């Protein structure tokens, strides 16, 4: 890892901490603290633990945000990120907090609603990247169609009206395993993004690094998007279309009503009295 390209901002935090922490170690530490806090927050039925976990999570997130903010405001992307300003942090914080809500809330319908909130704030983040089309499509498809179906199913499956949620909803099944797997995966992604040769947000960089004007022309332009999709990704697009059609037909086949078997009532069906 080349420390030369590392922005000076890491140094500020390093100075505060008084350790030799690099950007990497700092983020990995934040990931680990986040994992512990999420584990504590996952519903065990112990209230105090989850409050402590929430506090820890806010600290980890806050630390991560400070580090990220300093890194961005001094780093090579500073000029590109500036227009997004405070909105990025606000919406990112909402997205992360409600993502925790999705996995931690004991009542499934609230989980689904938190999921809607995640979708909306991610859409806001996409708008900050000038990808309005992606943002609106995310809202229409996820919030408007898929999650409505979730809410529909949850409404049918879980009792409303003051009846407490079922045990399997109130206590998470395998919190340790889930947290371990997900955060090891997260740590791996962070390591790859910040520690490898690609150094930084490759996704965020593509539109931002080239400046907003260029981004408006290429990434968000609807015509350009369509042309690109059909010129370079025609086969995957068609395959996805065929897959969707097949699943549509399958859904119709599964849900189709079968003719009921007509059973002629016999003498045995009449209660003998």
């Amino acid at each position, binding site marked *: 890892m080349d420390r030369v390209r590392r922005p000076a901002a890491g140094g500020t935090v390093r100075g505060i901490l008084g350790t030799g922490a690099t950007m990497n170690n700092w983020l990995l530490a934040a990931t680990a603290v986040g994992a512990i806090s999420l584990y504590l927050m996952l519903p065990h039925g112990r209230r105090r633990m989850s409050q402590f976990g929430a506090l820890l999570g806010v600290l980890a997130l806050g630390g991560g945000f400070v580090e990220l903010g300093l890194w961005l405001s001094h780093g090579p992307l500073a000029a590109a990120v500036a227009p997004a300003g405070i909105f990025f942090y606000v919406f990112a914080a909402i997205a992360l907090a409600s993502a925790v809500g999705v996995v931690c809330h004991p009542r499934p*319908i609230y989980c689904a*609603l938190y999921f*809607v909130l995640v979708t909306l704030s991610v859409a806001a983040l996409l708008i900050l990247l000038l990808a*309005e*089309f992606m943002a*609106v*499509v995310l*809202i*229409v498809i996820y*919030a*408007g*169609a898929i999650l*409505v*179906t979730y*809410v*529909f199913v949850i*409404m*049918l499956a879980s009792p*409303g*009206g*003051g*009846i407490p949620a079922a045990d399997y909803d109130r206590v998470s099944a395998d919190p340790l395993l889930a947290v371990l797997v997900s955060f090891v995966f997260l740590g791996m992604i962070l390591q790859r993004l910040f520690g490898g040769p690609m150094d930084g947000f490759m996704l965020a960089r593509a539109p931002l690094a080239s400046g907003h004007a260029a981004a408006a022309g290429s990434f*968000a*332009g*609807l015509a350009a998007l369509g042309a690109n999709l059909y010129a370079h990704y025609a086969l995957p697009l068609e395959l996805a279309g065929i897959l969707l059609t097949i699943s549509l037909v399958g859904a119709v086949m599964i849900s189709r009503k079968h003719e009921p078997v*007509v*059973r*002629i*009532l016999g003498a045995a*069906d*009449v209660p003998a009295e």
Partner: protein
Amino acid sequence: MLGIFIAHLVFALLMVGMLLSVIAYLILLERKTAAWMQDRLGPNRVGPKGLLQPLADGVKFILKEEFVPANADRILFLLAPIVIITPALCGFAVIPWGGVLGAGAHLPGWLGGWTFPKNFSVMVANPRIGVLFVIAMASLSVYGVVLAGWASGSKYSFLGGLRATAQMISYEIPLVLSLLSVAVVAGTLRLGAITDSQASYFSTVFFLPAWNIFIQPAAFLLFVTCIFAEANRAPFDLVECEQELVGGYHTEYSSMKFALFFLAEYAAMITGAAVAVALFLGGWHLPWIDQLIYPGAPGQPLVTGWGGVILKFVVFWAKVMLFIFFYMWVRWTLPRFRFDQLMNLAWRTLIPLSLGTFLLAALFVYLRREGAIEHRGWLLLGNVALLAGTVAMNQLWPGESTNRRLPVFNSRYQSAAGVLRPN
């Protein structure tokens, strides 16, 4: 730049204020229309001709008791009215109310006499994805209904919420496809640009303005049907039908929380009407006499001064009001659908028809690009043929009738096992 931003902000506040007062009077209009159609007088006690009735209604709503049922989910019960009113009011942001105000126009002296440094679109925001924004807001409005139904802890509300979900998801598909057909022909998703593209005349059919209702009547029919369903208006008001569900999803609501549901329904109506006017009915375009008002035919000045903007604004609102009257007219004319009829209409008729409309639109856009054909006349012909074909199919298709007679014996309507059994 900041000045223009503030101008948009002020316009947004003006529009929200105007909207809420218009909604109050729409409720009066609805009651008066209902009375007129049923040969009654309607509200006529408060003020001259009952014109102060909305104020009395408002006071009544505020003074009523706020009631939360004992077994309601409190948080969601309070959240639902907020969730339903927010997207209903957001949809207004992208409606082109009055064309474009030219650069250099002044504010009147008593407002500071500020000069617009550049052209000002008379709308709150003009994003590239205007049509999609309208769709997104419409798709979010279902949450309020669903939450209200579930959180009330009442079976009537719950059934209303269930029906609402199924209905709104189903009718969203043809709605989106009909909007897409229009957008494909116009080549843009900005509502303002689509309106501007309608401010001309057919070159093949004389004197017919090139509004999208005349270019793609099938798409218009689909769109109107779907916004009726999305706004939960009759004949698609199964969600709140009194005979079966008391009040549907808002059975348990009272006071201002109930008023918010009411406001949201009317706001959705106005949004639907405004989108219909902007996309299908020519927006601010006043046919035939426009050449007298705006000299320089055939292309009209799309960018005007204050006079033009105010005239366009008035024309747009007049069309919106006519369309809203159409809503009320339909409500007192058509009976409510049965639930299976509702679903069959969406999935077996509207969705195939909207796919056909979309294919036609795409085909003629392609032909227009290839050779110089007049796509408008051909699209009109194609749409009429499509509608005629649908009607013919409906008559000839060997499907089962949903209204067939069922034998009682051995069906689920049989009163008790064995009672009707023949020996």
